């Protein structure tokens, strides 16, 4: 249903570049009546997330408040910057029913399937 479109580097690139925008890690799970996308947005507050659906492209953008490393840096495993990632939605997703929630730095997107895409159980009479 989705193709994950790369639009930003991995978090382990551009470590020294303070203005960098990173591609957040994400899982896509298919359930019976819906898809669920879990996007890691550590350090992000609700008011700093922007979700934008344009035709088939669902884009997540998040602003991250800078977290300076004060002192002598000894280890740099990741860069801190804004997040951006676009997911391309297939025909099976009901655009009207998309919901999102953010908790503990994890954004969960619920994408219900269209009625036509839902499994239908046929009763045997």
């Amino acid at each position, binding site marked *: *249903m*989705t193709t*994950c479109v790369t639009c930003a580097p991995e*978090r*382990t690139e551009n470590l020294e570049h303070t203005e960098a925008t990173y591609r957040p*890690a*994400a*899982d*896509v*799970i*298919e*359930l*019976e009546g819906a*898809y669920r996308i*879990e996007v*890691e*947005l*550590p*350090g*992000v*507050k609700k008011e700093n997330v922007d979700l934008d659906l344009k035709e088939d492209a669902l884009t997540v953008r998040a602003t991250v408040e800078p*977290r300076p*490393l*004060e*002192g*002598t*840096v*000894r*280890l*740099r*495993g*990741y860069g*801190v910057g804004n997040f951006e990632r676009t997911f391309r939605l297939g025909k099976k997703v009901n655009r009207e029913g998309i919901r999102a929630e953010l*908790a*503990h*730095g*994890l954004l969960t997107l619920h994408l219900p399937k269209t009625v036509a895409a839902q499994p239908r159980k046929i009763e045997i009479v």
Partner: protein
Amino acid sequence: MLVRRDAGLVPRSSSLDIDRLFRDVFEDFPTWAPAAWSGTSKYPAVNAWEDDHAYHVEAELAGFQEKDIEITVLGNELRISGRREEKTEENAKVYHRERYVGEFSRVLRFPVDLDDSKVEAKLDHGVLRVRLPKAAAALPRKIEVQG
């Protein structure tokens, strides 16, 4: 969050020479890690920095809550461990996976001992920050020159 202090679980190695101590600064725990400290995973990624009085470690643990993470300090080592359980839903199919799942345990070793009674850890919106004060014996001491 649980900040646990361990004492005496592992024999402290006193035979390391100075060169080795400095080379090991901030490296992950070496392969001879005793069972109690077996964690050597590369997850979570960490940033670490140092000021005169303390080391600071930051790790990104999106989706984790305090109860899911354990911080342990022993001597000059910090261990961050935890577990992410997968949601079990009927007929769920993983379409695409990038997020870490399961147990993790990452150990960082510092060049000097830490004051385990003053370690502070905070988890905020999926970002863990640990402040590890250096042990008093490790702080620089000014020696007066007698006239």
